């Protein structure tokens, strides 16, 4: 009896129609391939910045494709949209596999091997699975429609195209169920109860006392309708946002291993005469590809601290605008009038200057993007163009550049004062030819800022107390180059990095420990671009090791609720968020409270991207917005492990007039607990 549990393929349609079906399928596929080919032209040809796609770290790419593409890891950070999309995606995957299985049987296993397997229990399981998938997909689509048009979150548009696609998919799915239902009703097979969707429909038809003949006629018609709209859907993919099926997946593969912590270098200055991006054609194919992978989901915008603080910047709109420019350029290029079609936005720039300068380079957009599009990377390229080619920036930035070049530090204080922070603490100078296990890279903030040099001093004392063999560069220390790089001046970054690498290469030490996360990130991840390779730690790592190893003994406790703010360049850029918490928990009595945005999802303090030295731009102050969020968990102490974050918060506490809360660095907390 079980052997009877199978389905006649092409029932009521006629197996002779198979050829038509395949013809239509070929046409649809043809259109799909053609559409993608045209797109490919745009991906590769619009860019005149030849860099080919790279395919190193293949394992990492495939892994990301599986984890983020198939299993939707980043999307699942938010339950509703994560599940919603997962339902649709997996529903479709399973339905596709179902169709593929049929084709496998009909076109391969039966003709070649005489084997059919869609029967019996397997067939019931198969039908149950497909039906569930279909219902789940419908649920997902309905969730999507509700979300977009009824709940109406800020970050989603409500344009007609979005709605049309959702409805189209819904129709495909429901017609599929209707077909199933009509067939079940006509064939009246009891075992088809496993085809739950179809079963329900056939039950309704029964209740409606539908005529058999009508059912069969309806089925015949609907079958072709369903076929056409399904194949039409496939053909439509490359001409709509549905192309994200291809591009988003591919983008995960292409862009996932690209480290956000590291900006792309400009090698070989002398050979180029153009720097940064001023038209879309200056982007690399990889960067352009990222533009096409965007489905305007808006997570980047929702997580952008500048956007949340009502500044001019929306990472989502950045990608949208650049994408529009790219498409227009591509079409102009294909126009065949020989013009290169260099389109730019108003006043000759691809984006408004306000937008370009509002970014703090915190990387939250790239982190939150489910398909690894980096909005800030594009902004950075535009910024480089403004700085290096057009010399267009706030006058205080010109002063900043000149100060760093003349004096070697971001404060414009000068080499002569580099050792003042040591204030009677006896520290070795590695630059004098002395050797040490660890080079303590203090950084400009720790050296010159009157609040942060207290912390640098505390750290030095901690290291001494723990018996660490360390030394400093003293007067030879020079800015690591990160601020210049992130404001866009690659040239000054290069000069600084080159100088530092040459100096460090001549000295005797095993590891570098930095105070500032920016120095940490640059020395560790960006100096290798210029050929250097140092072992670099952030001081929280060293503290953790010292405490764990017993060299630092915590003797006092601290009965306070403590909120640890994760610095962007530690938590997001370098995935360091567990260690600092470990260090804090080593102090008895510390009650860690977590603000809403923490760990990799941390909310920038606002000082990044050169904003420490820039005037305040219109909008709320990012540090105040973050502070208010932190205060929601009522900490008595706000602690962090970054000099910039610390002074941004102390500033914010003053400007907001907050009482009952203190801002401390982790180093200070440990020092007081010894």
């Amino acid at each position, binding site marked *: 009896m079980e052997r009877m549990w199978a389905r006649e393929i092409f029932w009521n349609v006629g197996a002779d129609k198979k050829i038509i079906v395949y013809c239509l399928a070929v046409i649809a596929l043809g259109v799909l391939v053609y559409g993608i080919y045209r797109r490919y032209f745009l991906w590769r040809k619009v860019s005149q910045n030849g860099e080919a796609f790279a395919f190193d770290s293949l394992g990492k790419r495939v892994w990301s494709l599986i984890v983020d593409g198939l299993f939707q890891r980043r999307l699942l950070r938010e339950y509703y949209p994560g599940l919603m999309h997962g339902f649709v995606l997996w529903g479709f995957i399973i339905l596709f596999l179902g169709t593929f299985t049929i084709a496998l049987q009909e076109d391969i296993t039966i003709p070649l091997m005489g084997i059919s397997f869609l029967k019996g229990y397997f067939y019931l399981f198969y039908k149950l699975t497909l039906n569930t998938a279909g219902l789940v997909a419908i649920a997902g689509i309905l969730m999507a429609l509700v979300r977009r048009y009824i709940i109406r979150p800020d970050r989603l548009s409500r344009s007609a195209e979005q709605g049309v696609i959702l409805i189209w998919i819904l129709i495909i799915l429901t017609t599929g169920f209707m077909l199933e239902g009509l067939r079940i009703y006509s064939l009246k097979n009891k075992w088809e109860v496993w085809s739950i969707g179809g079963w329900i429909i056939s039950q309704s038809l029964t209740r409606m006392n539908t005529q058999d003949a009508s059912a069969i006629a309806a089925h015949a018609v609907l079958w072709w309708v369903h076929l056409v709209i399904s194949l039409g859907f496939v053909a439509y993919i490359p001409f709509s946002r549905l192309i994200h099926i291809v591009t988003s997946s591919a983008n995960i593969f292409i862009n996932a291993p690209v480290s956000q912590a590291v900006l792309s270098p400009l090698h070989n*200055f*002398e050979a180029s*005469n153009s*720097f940064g991006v001023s038209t879309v054609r200056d982007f690399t194919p990889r960067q352009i590809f990222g533009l096409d992978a965007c489905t305007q989901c808006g997570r980047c915008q929702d997580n952008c601290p500048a956007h949340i603080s009502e500044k001019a910047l929306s990472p989502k709109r950045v990608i949208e605008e650049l994408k529009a420019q790219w498409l227009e350029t591509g079409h102009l290029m294909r126009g065949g009038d020989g013009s290169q079609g260099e389109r730019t936005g108003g006043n000759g720039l691809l984006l408004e200057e306000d937008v370009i300068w509002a970014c703090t380079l915190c990387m939250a957009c790239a982190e939150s993007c489910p398909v690894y599009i980096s909005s800030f990377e594009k902004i950075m390229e535009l910024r480089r163009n403004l700085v*290096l*080619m*057009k*010399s267009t*920036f706030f*006058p205080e930035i*010109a002063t900043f*550049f*000149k100060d760093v070049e*003349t*004096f070697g530090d971001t404060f414009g204080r*000068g*080499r*002569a*004062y580099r050792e003042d922070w040591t204030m009677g603490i006896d520290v070795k100078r590695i630059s004098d030819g002395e050797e040490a296990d660890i080079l303590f890279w203090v950084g400009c903030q720790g050296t010159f800022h009157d609040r942060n040099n207290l912390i640098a001093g505390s750290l030095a004392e901690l290291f001494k107390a723990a018996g660490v063999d360390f030394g400093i560069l003293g*007067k030879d220390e020079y800015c690591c180059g990160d601020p210049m790089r992130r404001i866009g001046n*690659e*040239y000054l970054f290069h000069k600084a990095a080159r100088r530092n690498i040459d100096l460090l290469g001549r000295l005797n030490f095993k590891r570098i420990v930095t105070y500032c996360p920016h120095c940490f990130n640059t020395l560790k991840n960006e100096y290798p671009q210029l050929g250097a390779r140092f072992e670099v730690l952030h001081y929280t790592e060293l503290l953790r090791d010292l405490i764990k190893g017993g060299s630092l003994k915590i003797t006092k406790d601290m009965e306070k609720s403590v909120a640890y703010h994760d610095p962007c360049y530690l938590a997001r850029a370098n995935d360091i968020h567990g260690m600092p918490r470990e260090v804090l928990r080593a102090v008895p009595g510390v009650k860690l409270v977590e603000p809403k945005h923490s760990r990799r999802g941390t909310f920038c303090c606002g000082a990044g991207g050169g904003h420490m030295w820039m005037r305040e731009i219109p909008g709320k102050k990012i540090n105040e917005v973050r502070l208010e969020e932190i205060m929601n968990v009522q900490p008595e102490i706000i602690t962090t492990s970054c000099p910039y974050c610390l002074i941004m918060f102390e500033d914010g506490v003053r400007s907001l007039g907050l009482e009952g809360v203190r801002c401390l660095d982790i180093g200070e907390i440990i020092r007081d607990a010894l």
Partner: protein
Amino acid sequence: MKIIVFVKAIKYVYAQTGTDPKANFIGPDDIVRIINPLDELALEEALRIKERQAGTDVLVISLGDGSAEDGLRKCLSMGADEAIHIYDEGYGELDAWMTATALASSIRNRDFKLILCGRRAIDDNGGLVGPYIAEIVGIPHVSGVVKLEIDGGGEGVLVHRAVERGNREVMECTIPGLFTVEKGINVPRYPTLPGILRAQKQAIQRVEIKDLKFPLKSFGPALNLTETISLSNPKPKKRSGGLVDATLSASDRLRLMMGGGDTETKGESTLVEGDTDKVLSEIERVLRESGIFPE
């Protein structure tokens, strides 16, 4: 039109962290080599004129040791067309008069309409070389210019000259002429990277100072009109007056006054606690000393 800009590469002492009292505690770390800031403004002004008037050339000349070349490269990166380095090993050996003589000699037989330079250099605080050159070359000069416009006919310029209290004297001057610029005339541009890279490859003409032709029998420090015989640290400024606290009660104030006042010396300022009358008399003193009211 040809514009000549004179720039000085100076040794700027920004700190005194050395250990030798004979060197006024100036150590090697305390010095940076920079272009005299006002000369940068002069160059920027020349470049702006060049942008407004087609066919303008800007020539930059600097007299100094090897580091003058870095300064000239910086000028080229900003957009100067040509640079000449008058090489002289000694720094500060030539006084203003000899320097001006050398610079004037370097432009003899050159056709130019404008000479621009900073009003004074922040290392020696002279303000002499500009007017000296003008006199030697025989052209009019105006010092302290904060605005410069070439008049329509190209025969003269209109200038605003900065005088005291932010006021301006408006003058017209025929050209060729020499103009020394003061802070506020413009904000110098930051060079673009293509500009920097191009400047690295540009040739800078080098002229040995002994190869300049001088109408004097000899040239050199021996003919200096003035000489700096020593450098010292200035005495700290006297700060009279101090902290006046109006929140004390009358009896406290009386007690303090009888007791001679409570004085804390914090470095250079003296803090005294007193009353409203003291506040007003101190403010009045300060206003008079600053010239707002006559003393």
